[in-house]
């Protein structure tokens, strides 16, 4: 059973990054915070999966003709765990209440912000942005991975394994490609040497975001054209926020702001929706990223 689901790889890799970060990057991560994040996300997932349908929110969906019959909502602990690990990797705070709030809102966003049963916010990203906005206790450390090439290799290798199975490499490529082009133009215009450019692109946090966060197949556009446009928009907005407004956590804000674009892009370019169950049952190729 283990490693049958692509999300298992995801869980494995994210855990590996946590261990690497704590062991080699001098993070002051607290184990109890990680446990609280996992407990919160899993509990919320279970609670909402069992309660939500009772409110009747899905009545109308059942009448529609979907290509395959919608299975009843199963609490997806894998996804919840991925959200929790994503939060643990990225979010820093001083108090438990902040982690609990982030985990709760992250999972809740999957149930509230959905359209035709597809959620369009990346849950971990939603959790992070919510607590950045709502509390005074949270922060994200963009410099936490440094820019060493071998971390880049680890992220690219593990990310590549997952992306190959999920079939979302196009999103990462479009994001990194367009972001790199924008940074290269800026570098050229300013007249910096190229090591400045490489230093900016080798940031472990940027790579992790590109490989493990914006590629969540459940919340991003279904069609390839949609995904390309979506990823390029996020790259452009990140670039502007970072260089014009000096926001160090630009990528998270850009993803948050542009997530609803998924709905429009899905309307324009129709494509089959991604289901974990479908991937596991049939064997097509599609899988996840920091959050599903």
């Amino acid at each position, binding site marked *: 059973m283990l490693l049958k689901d692509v999300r298992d790889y995801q869980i494995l890799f994210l855990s590996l990054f946590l261990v690497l970060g704590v062991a080699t990057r001098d993070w002051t991560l607290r184990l109890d915070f990680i446990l609280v994040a996992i407990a919160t996300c899993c509990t919320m997932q279970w609670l909402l999966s069992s309660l939500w349908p009772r409110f009747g929110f899905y009545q109308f969906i059942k009448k529609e003709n979907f290509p395959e019959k919608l299975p009843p909502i199963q609490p997806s602990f894998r996804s919840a765990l991925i959200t929790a690990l994503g939060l643990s990797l990225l979010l820093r705070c001083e108090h438990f209440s902040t982690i609990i709030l982030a985990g709760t809102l992250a999972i809740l966003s999957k149930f509230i912000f959905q359209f035709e049963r597809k959620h369009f916010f990346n849950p971990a990203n939603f959790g992070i942005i919510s607590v950045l906005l709502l509390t005074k206790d*949270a*922060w994200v450390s963009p410099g936490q991975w*440094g*820019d*060493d090439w071998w971390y880049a290799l680890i992220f690219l290798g593990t990310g590549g394994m997952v992306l190959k199975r999920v079939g979302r490499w196009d999103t990462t490529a479009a994001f990194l490609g367009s972001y790199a082009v924008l940074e290269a133009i800026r570098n050229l215009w*300013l*007249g910096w040497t190229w*090591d400045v450019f490489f230093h900016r692109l080798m*940031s472990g946090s940027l790579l992790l975001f590109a490989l493990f966060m914006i590629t969540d197949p459940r919340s991003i556009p279904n069609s390839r054209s949609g995904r390309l446009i979506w990823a390029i928009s996020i790259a452009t907005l990140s670039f502007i926020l970072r260089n014009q407004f000096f926001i160090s956590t630009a990528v998270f804000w850009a993803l948050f702001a542009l997530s609803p674009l998924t709905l429009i892009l899905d309307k324009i370019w129709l494509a089959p929706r991604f289901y974990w169950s479908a991937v596991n049952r049939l064997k097509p190729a599609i899988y996840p990223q920091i959050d599903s």
Partner: protein
Amino acid sequence: MKIIRQFVAILIAVLAFICFAPTAWGFCGFYVAKADTKLYNKASEVIIAREGDRTILTMANDYQGNVKDFAIVVPVPVVLQQEQVRVGDPKIIQRLDAFSAPRLVEYFDPDPCADGDFSAGFGTRGGAPIPRSAARNRNAESALGVTIESRFTVGEYDILILSARESNGLETWLKTNGYRIPQGGSQLLQPYIRQNMKFFVAKVNLSEFEKSGYKFLRPLQMAYESPRFMLPIRLGMLNATSEQDLIAYILSPKGQTEITNYRTVKIPSNTQIPLFVKNEFGEFYKAMFQTAYTREGKNAAFIEYAWDMGGCDPCSAEPLNPEELRQSGVFWLTPGSGTNVFITRLHLRYTRDKFPEDLTFQETSNRQFFQGRYILRHPFRGEIKCEAGQGYQRLLAERFEREAQTLAQLTGWNIQQIRQKMPVTALESPKIPFWRNIWP
């Protein structure tokens, strides 16, 4: 000029000036000495007091050459007017340094024969802070497109704020006005010009300097508002081949400040080390810093201290009083509001190849305290007359060995030499495997 200030978003920032480094290079600007005077350098020091987009930056001036040759060029985010530039008191940087310096603490073992657990020490007291030096022993305008945005004298400095349209023009202007620009300077000025930054050019007004009666140049302080929270270190590294040290004291009402484009790591701390280090703490700290710097890949910033300025434990110097905080640029305190100031002391050792980009910072809500703290634990010196004492002495031997190993690991010093400096315990020395004699 006010219009310019309104475009805060466009104003890029940077700031900084001063900085004096090994030859003629400083961390955020470069010296443009008017003669080939040999410049001496130590670590650059800077205080950044920041709340929101408002910043007061204090740059220490440790220039030791002939003051008439002193001149610097520093990129700044906005045009500064006379009232935004001040001359600070050099003592304030010494105060912050002493308050936040890595420290030694001492504990004394109790009598092992008395009741109680002798594994815990008692009686802590602050050791001497690292001596200041030891810690850082490391220790034709329009045609050229150059505009003088403002010109004024503050204290002993004559200051010009320049804006430029292109770097060759600026270089030519500086050269024709008697400033010596390093080779390759023009190329490095371009990114700052393109980012719409201004140039803060300071030299010493000799008559004012003599009137002031000071022996040394005092720190320059500037106040400005800009969303950009960064320090330009690139200019200062132009052609520099050696490592440069920068100590930044960052004061915030919120919490710790960290670097966003490089790693920020904590200096090794809270380790128990042999007693003889007390007499060579400066040497110890230098060696330890160098070892940590190398281990982290030479591209990380080290936190040496992070604490609320309201207190300290143990204190290596008295906390700064409100007047001293004001002098160091803290502008958000109101009488009776207490001292809501959190200090982060960052120590960077940088070179051109490992730090290609200017430093950018962010403040965080992290209010966890951290200090570089090293522990000396004195063994019980009195007469031991009980059985438990035997056990104590055996433990002592093990403890000394452990301390020696820790010290060797932290500093890269030779373990044999460390062992030789350590006291011999009353009992046999601990079982040290025979091969350690040749393979430490």
